[in-house]
């Protein structure tokens, strides 16, 4: 087997193992909360008989590890059960909302990643001169702004002063692709502002780091233009840290944007999780927790693999 393939398979297997461990943690954590699911369903009006009946019908009298495997079996076959609060099928609700989450994250990533790397390259090229200072200054101030402030600002600017977008960003099945893009424009702008600086700074720092190397000096002495030196010689050797930061930000775009979702009324996974946490709807919390964990682990594996593929030393181990 090719050593890279072997490494990749190893990473994926390791990731799956990690995910399994996380699923145990999530299950044990929600189980350890005071009160059980039956109590959560019946609330304060629970009588002992009603509790006993419900425990029986939900199978809560079985030991914890058996219930865990039941749950895991359901999850593996795509059955997350039903929400306690409104009886809706969790799998269906999550599928739709996960789609919305990925759509928003995808749009934000499609703009922010190329933009951040491009700006990082430009900043590195003009290190210490005015383009570097402007880029760093602007991106640092947008990242310093709390998300909801940025959100209110763009709402004010782009729906009231210049009314070109709509403040509420809900998307529904049946909307055309363009209508959806138009709906998510404002949250995408906010998310781009928030994640831009981190990736831009890392690109700049990584490039500047390799710019000290002897081979860069050689390239410069050959008479190559500065942008060409950066693009051809510096970037390929600086790509590993950039990838890991980009992936970290992608993970944030998927699992960490609940504030933005709330401000724009965007119907995605974060808002769904928070609502159900407030009502102690444990099956939903477990399911969403597991999905978030899977996204994190998956993206980290991806980062690893890409770093290996991009790094000649790792690609050709001695």
């Amino acid at each position, binding site marked *: 087997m090719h050593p890279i393939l072997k490494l990749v398979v190893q990473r994926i297997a390791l990731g799956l193992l990690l995910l399994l461990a996380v699923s145990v943690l999530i299950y044990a954590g929600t189980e350890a909360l005071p009160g059980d699911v039956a109590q959560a369903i019946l609330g304060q009006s629970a009588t002992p008989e009603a509790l006993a009946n419900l425990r029986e019908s939900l199978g809560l009298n079985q030991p914890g590890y058996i219930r865990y495997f039941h749950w895991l079996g359901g999850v593996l076959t795509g059955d997350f059960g039903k929400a306690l609060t409104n009886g809706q099928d969790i799998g269906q609700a999550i599928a739709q909302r996960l789609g919305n989450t990925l759509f928003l994250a995808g749009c934000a990533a499609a703009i922010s990643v190329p933009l951040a790397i491009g700006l990082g390259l430009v900043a590195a090229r003009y290190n210490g001169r005015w383009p570097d200072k402007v880029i760093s200054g602007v991106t640092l101030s947008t990242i310093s702004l709390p998300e909801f402030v940025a959100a209110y600002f763009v709402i004010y600017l782009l729906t*009231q002063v210049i009314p070109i977008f709509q403040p*509420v960003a809900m998307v529904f099945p049946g909307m055309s692709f363009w209508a959806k893009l138009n709906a998510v424009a404002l949250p995408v702008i906010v998310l781009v502002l928030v994640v831009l600086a981190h990736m831009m700074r890392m690109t700049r720092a990584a490039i500047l780091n390799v710019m000290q190397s002897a081979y860069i000096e050689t390239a410069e002495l050959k008479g190559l233009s500065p942008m060409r030196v950066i693009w051809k010689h510096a970037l390929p050797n600086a790509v590993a840290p950039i990838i890991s930061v980009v992936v970290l930000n992608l993970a944030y775009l998927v699992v960490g944007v609940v504030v933005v979702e*709330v401000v724009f*009324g965007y119907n995605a996974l974060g808002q769904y999780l928070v*609502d159900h946490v407030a009502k102690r709807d444990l099956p939903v919390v477990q399911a969403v927790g597991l999905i978030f964990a899977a996204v994190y682990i998956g993206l980290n594996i991806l980062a690893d693999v890409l770093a290996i593929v991009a790094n000649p030393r790792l690609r050709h181990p001695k």
Partner: protein
Amino acid sequence: MSDELHYIVKRAAKGLMSRREFMGRATALGVSAMMANALLASAVRAEEPKKGGLLRAGMAGGESTNSLDPALAASEVPFLVNMTWGEMLVDVTPNGEIDYRIAEEISSNSDATEWKFKIRQGVEYHNGKTVTAEDVVATLKRHTDEKAQSGALGIVQGISEMSASGDMVTLKLASGNADLPFLMGDYHLIIQPDGGVANPAEGIGAGPYKIVENEPGVRHAFERHANYWDPSIAHADQVEVLVINDNTARTAALQAGQVHMINRVDPKIVELLKGVPGVSVEAVAGRGHYVFIMHCDKAPFDNNDLRMALKLAINREEMVEKILGGLGSVGNDFPINAAYPLFDDSIPQRTYDAAKAAEHYKASGHDGSPIVLRTAPGAFPGAVEAAQLFQQSAAAAGIPLEVKVEPDDGYWSDVWNVQPFCASYWGGRPVQDQMYSTAYLSTADWNDTKFKNAEFDELLLKARAELDATKRKEEYSKMANILRDEGGLILPMFNDFVEAKREEVAGWVQDPNGELMNGRALVKCWLNA
């Protein structure tokens, strides 16, 4: 009618001017308030509703955990959603009268223990079935089942026997209750096919709109129920509720025209919103109130002089002005106001009187140690500030209050109904009996002032079975006076519902029964495009 008056009546009828503004201008033109009201009502009636279009509400108070099961409705969005697809036996009109819906006639025996509801013929559910008397009984029965966890359990519990024959539903009560028809207008008691026993959250009812999209916490979309029995309402072809819990986004959506009406306008921005073209703010005096409650059975509040001293030591006008931003009215230490039927407006208004408060305080013989008042930001909006205002006005009367701010988390389980003196709030009830029975009857679970008065209890039970309105009003007036002078309730203010709508929305009526025209705003308004 003067030109000016004519002009403002027209503007108000079109919804271009708020009712409050209209009343102010009309009275400035020398018209009496009653006359102005009548003018407005007839002008609104004269305006022909326009059919068609898509009417949208943006609302706070929805979560992705919401269900369509009417028994479970508790927050604002499920309430309005259910009012849009559901139909009850009756509604209560803004004037506090019965609006006959599925019941077309109601009669009772002389001691109000047996009630007959005649069911309207040919009312159709969204699934094509017809509403029957059996459905009504099955619905009410489902709400009596503890497993249904119905918010109307307290209402239907008092019904000892239900039966259906032909188009007649007969309800027998354990003890007489003259208010039963009003109680049947409770928003949980939506009539469902076969009582909704098999699938309570199906969302099939006999209301004006049927649900086409139900995404809890996000959006609820409806289209007109083609065979709805009452052609005088349900004007828009489609209606929609968007859940927008964030205050700023909700207001922005209204300004941008993405929604036509919103609930819960933040009192802080009312003045700003009034200046926005195309938008009007509607403040409706409702029955909800903000209170400070004392346990009548715990020292030092077991002394009526001390209770009276505290009641006199609160500055009600200041509270309305500073806590509600003027969007409310002063309270009189009993939980009833003019929004209730049979309200006695001749009961004198209690006002801030530091000298008298000091007198009562001295008479109580309290040892001068600070009296602890517990509050929390979530007790009601502005509860901490209100407690501080109370502390200052009481200090001026020589009464030392110590304000203790508690965390929101656990306030309703560890402080309210547990600690002897704290801030709290109440939403209103449709009738006086229900309000008093919920919180002031000696045996009530939620008797949060631990008020136990045999005469009061007796009057309450007597008034409940009294069919003569004059006598009932007298009895309620006596009860109000007892509670006002001896109770543990300090009620400084009734809060308004503050809502806003766009100018193209017509048919808006002020309804003290509940938010957004008692949940029927989407059903009763239309779009003047």
